[in-house]
Structure formats: C-alpha cells, structure tokens
C-alpha cells in the first residue's frame, strides 16, 4: 500500500479536509524558508510541499515565480535542500513532506540518485512540466517509494483521467482552473462537479490547488476534496508580514477546517 495514500486516508478519518502548504526553498533566504516550514509543521499542517526553485517555472504565476528568482540569486543547492527537508521530515513524523521542482534541476541531479536520497523520508514529488507520457523518466522514484504526484485539470478528458489514475498513486493533484499557480478565475464555481467527475475514475485521494487562498475556498472543497493545496496565498502573506502573516493566514485556513461538520 502506498505510504502517501495510506497517510492521507488515515488523516481523513479524523479530519474533514487536510492542508498541503507550500514553501519556496531559499526564499527569501534558506534560513528564513526553513523557519516558515518549521512554523507550518509546528502548527500541524498534514502535508508540506517544498519547491526547489528553477529559473524558468512555466507553471507558476507571478508570486511564486518572483520568489523563485529571488531564491536563485542566493544559489541554493538541491543537495542541501534535500538534506534540510529530510531532517525536517524526521523531526516532524506526524506530517509528510513532498519535494516540488521542475524537470531540469531533477535531471541535473540525476533521477536515480534523487530517488535513493529521498527514499524513506520524502513521500512524494511534484514535477509540473512532465505528463504521464514521460512517466518512465520518473520510474526510479516510484520504485523507491517517492511517489510522483500526477496532475488532472478541468479539461482533462474522461479517458485520460482514467489513464492518469491508473499510472498514479498516492494522490492526484487536481488543478482548480486553467492557468498558473495563484490564479482563480471562476471562484471555484464548477469545482464540485469537476471533482465528482474525477472521483468516478479513481480511488486515490484528491488534492486541489491553484488559487486556493481563503477559508471560504476551503469550505467549497469540503466533502469533495481530501487535501487543499495553498501556495501563493501563504507566500503573499509572508511578503506582507513575514512569519506573522503566515501565522495569520494559516490560522484562518485551519479555523475554517475546524468549523466544518466532522462528517464532511
């Protein structure tokens, strides 16, 4: 049984919705980003997605792109990033950490080497510039229990949802709308029918990201998704008021979840 999937299902027995928060490694500095990660984990986020920055992040919107470029100006090393997040994952055994990056830094490090290094500590990996057509490239990660998280979009055809679901394990990442991270065009109007359509074809936990920024958004996901992914909104909060901003945004999100009916 897949570790990531088991973890999410076990947590979901206790909670109506889980949170996967996102942090850019090295923004605004390595130390600061680690501080933000520790704060989120101290406050019980179930999943933490750590993005190793890439110079050309085509799936990211302006907030995360700017953070990545700022982070890169300090020349972060993937090797150090992995060491740091492995240490965090051991320090916080009640949460799961996932690595996110683009294909080039991953290929540059070596997929096999990355799989071996992450194995046992990091439950999953998110790479937005590869589709299941390129799945064999990531096979070593799967073999080492570092589950590649595959992406579904509102326009993904039904047969392709089934195909992706067959390839996938752990959880599916359902992009909330067309576009890049941090964008929410239609205010999640059609999210429920979209998730219901995906659900028909998979038994995997569903996570939803892109433009999820408020307690109100989380209410709309309750009962339809398993995990809400929040990235740009926390980064914006950090940019406004550093750790205090993050703490406030997190408590807004967590209190929205605690107010949900437990059967959701």
């Amino acid at each position: 049984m897949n570790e990531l999937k088991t973890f999410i299902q076990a947590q979901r027995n206790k909670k109506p919705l889980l949170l996967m928060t996102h942090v850019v490694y090295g923004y605004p500095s390595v130390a600061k980003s680690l501080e933000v990660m520790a704060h989120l984990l101290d406050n019980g986020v179930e999943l933490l997605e750590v993005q190793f920055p890439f110079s050309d992040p085509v799936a990211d919107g302006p907030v995360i792109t700017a953070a990545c470029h700022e982070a890169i100006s300090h020349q972060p090393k993937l090797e150090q990033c992995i060491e740091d997040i492995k240490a965090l994952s051991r320090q916080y055994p009640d949460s799961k950490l996932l690595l996110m990056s683009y294909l080039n830094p991953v290929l540059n490090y070596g997929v096999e080497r990355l799989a071996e290094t992450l194995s046992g500590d990091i439950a999953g990996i998110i790479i937005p510039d590869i589709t299941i057509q390129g799945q064999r490239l990531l096979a070593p990660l799967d073999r080492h229990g570092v589950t590649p998280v595959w992406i579904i979009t509102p326009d993904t055809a039904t047969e392709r949802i089934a195909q992706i679901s067959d390839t996938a394990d752990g959880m599916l990442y359902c992009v909330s709308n067309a576009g890049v991270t941090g964008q929410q065009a239609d205010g999640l109007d059609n999210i429920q029918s979209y998730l219901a359509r995906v659900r028909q074809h998979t038994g995997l936990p569903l996570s939803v990201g892109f433009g999820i920024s408020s307690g109100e958004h989380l209410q709309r996901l309750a009962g339809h998704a398993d995990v809400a992914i929040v990235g740009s909104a926390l980064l914006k909060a950090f940019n406004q008021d550093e750790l205090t901003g993050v703490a406030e945004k997190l408590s807004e999100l967590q209190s929205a979840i605690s107010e949900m009916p437990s059967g959701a």
Partner: protein
Amino acid sequence: MSDEGYFGQYGGSYIPEILFNSQQQLIESFREAMADASFLAQVKSEMQTYSGRPTPLTYCGNLTEAVGGAQIYIKREDLNHSGAHKMNNVIGQGLLAKRMGKKRVIAETGAGQHGVATALVSARLGLECTIYMGAHDIQRQYPNVFWMKQLGATVVPVTTGSATLKDALDEAIRDWCTHYEDTHYLIGTSCGCEPFPEMVAGFQSVIGEEVKEQAMAQIGRYPDRIYACVGGGSNACGIFLPFLDSEVELVGVEAGGIGDGPGEHAKRFNTDQARFGVAQGYATKFLQDDQGQLQETQSISAGLDYVGVSPILADLEEQGKVRMISARDDEVVDAFKRLMISEGIIAALESSHAVAGGIREAATMQVDESIAINLSGRGDKDIFNIAKALNDVAFGDFIEDYLSEAMKP
C-alpha cells in the same frame, strides 16, 4: 523525426498537463493542414504576394575580391516583408491559427522581428495579438515595439528573471496555459514542444529550397558551404534542412558575445557551460549552471540572445551533419561594416554573425569554391545599437535635437 517529436535525444514534449489537449489539437491540425493542397497553396501565395518571395541570391563580387577566397553569395531574407525571415513562419502559423478557428495569437520576441512579423500578419488576418518581450530587449529595440503597438498589438514587457527572450518565452507559455481555448501560441523559432520545432523549420525551409534552384541557375551547382546565424535556430533550419542529403557543408554561427565566461556569450555548442536539459517545453542543449538553472546570455544582437537551441540543430550537430562556430561582438560589427561598404547591404546584427563566420572561412577557401550566407534580416532596426557601436557622435546630436523638438508644446 521519430515519434512524439524527438530528434535523437532532443525535442519531445515537456509541458504542463493543462496544455495537453491544446497541444494534441495543434499536432492534429498541423498534420491535416500539411496534407491539404489548398492550405499549402494559400501559404505559398501569401509568401509570394504578401512577403515578396522568392528572395534573391545576391552575388557579392566586391566582398569576394576583398576577402580573397571562395565566391560569396548572400541569400536575401532581409528583403522579406517585415525585413526578416520571421515572416515565412508567421504566414504559415497565422493561416494555421485561422484554420483552427483561434481568435488570438500570442508570441515571444527577442529582437522584436518576430513580434513585428506576428503583429503584421495578425492585422492582415484579423487576429488579436499579444507580444511578450523582455524589458531589457524593449530598451534595446524600441523601434520594433513602436511598430507592434501601431499595428494594434499589445506588447507586454517581461521583467522576471533576466528580462530577455527566455523569460518572454516562459511568459508566453503561461498565457497559453490560461487562454489555450481561443489562443494559438505562435512561437517564433524552431524550439518548444512538438510540433513547433518541425512546424517552424518546415515553414522556413522555403529558404533552402529557393537557394537550391537559385544556386543551380547562378553557380551551376550547390555552394560548397552554407552559413547561418543560430539563436533559436529557425533561419538556420530553414536554409540547412533542404541540403541535408547533399555534399554541402552546413555551418551555424553562434553569438560569441564578449568572451567565453558564463553569461558573456550565447553559445550552446563548443562550451561545457551548455549541456542536455529540459525546459520551456522541450529537451535540448541549454546553458545552465551546476544546479540546472538556466544561465544568462549575452550578445550584441537581441535575436541570438537565447539560452537553448532548436532540438533539430542539437541533434544534427551531434550527428556531425552541422558544424557550429561562433563570432564575437567586435568581429560581427566589423563584418557588418565590410558587407555594407562593399555591397551596399545593411545586415541585421544577428545575420552579421553569419557574415562574420562566412568571410572568416571564405578567406581560407579556393576561388573556385563558393559559399552562401543566409542574411536572415536587415539592419535598419539596429540603427541605435550600430550608431553606438560605430561611435557616431552626430547620431547623439540628432537624438537630442529630436527630443527637444518633440518636447516643444
């Protein structure tokens, strides 16, 4: 080309899932269009009656004599409408976008030539047009920006990253991710995911096809070598590919910039700073650091200032079918002057790289040999940069006078 858009180990499709449907639609529409004789006739007709093809192959007797070696011929892509080879691709993709029922096109541009060509064709075909251009390039090439705006295009300055072509390309991909339903991404060079490299190289191949006929008529045989500058690689693919199965030696000339250090040039070949990588939708040789971050590039010409290169050329170079050399900024300005003074042809700084490489090697060849140089664009757009490179003081006075005149109430 193998399945799924690979050229050897290069090419392929590395795109966000959100673009999957749109890309499949594009691949299908492109294949259908290329099999439709009426579409091909329409492209040919536009190339002739709108852009002025065929462009001539000009013999350069004075330059040949001054260099003292092989006979030098210049393929005059500068004489296309818009003043560059970019028009060939834009006509093809513009008509394809119409055929697919798209209402809007988006494009990235470096020097601005592709942006202007896209804006021209959009005006002609009634397409909405948005151009992404690095803020740094806008500074270098404002006259092109001016024309794009006059033509009704929206020009979006891209300030992220190095604020040059690669960042403009990232931003165009993000726009495509958001608006794929009604928008065609009209990429300007033979890079990106399937089918873009093949499609752009295909529309540009008219250059090489014409050279074949013209060389037979004017020289009596094919030239011994063909030179083209290589940024993304579309003009090089266009003149090279039709000659792949011939004896002609194909030589690409990259931007040597100001030196060999990281960030001082835009060479993807003959340097250990570039190696296999995946970004911007495809695999090729990218200039990158030890962490796989794409590097900044430098060149006197905005159009060659690109961090990757056509996967078609990366593969051909690896197979030994294309030889890559480079020319530094100072050698390029010198070649620009020599061509201008001896033949009365004003070349773009991009194309002057091919001229530099060509005349450097022609000098070592025999008089009974011949070379063809692809003059991908004209140099009018470079007037500000060239005036600066030539230290033309009067030009500065003119600008000051112009400003004080323009500021008058």
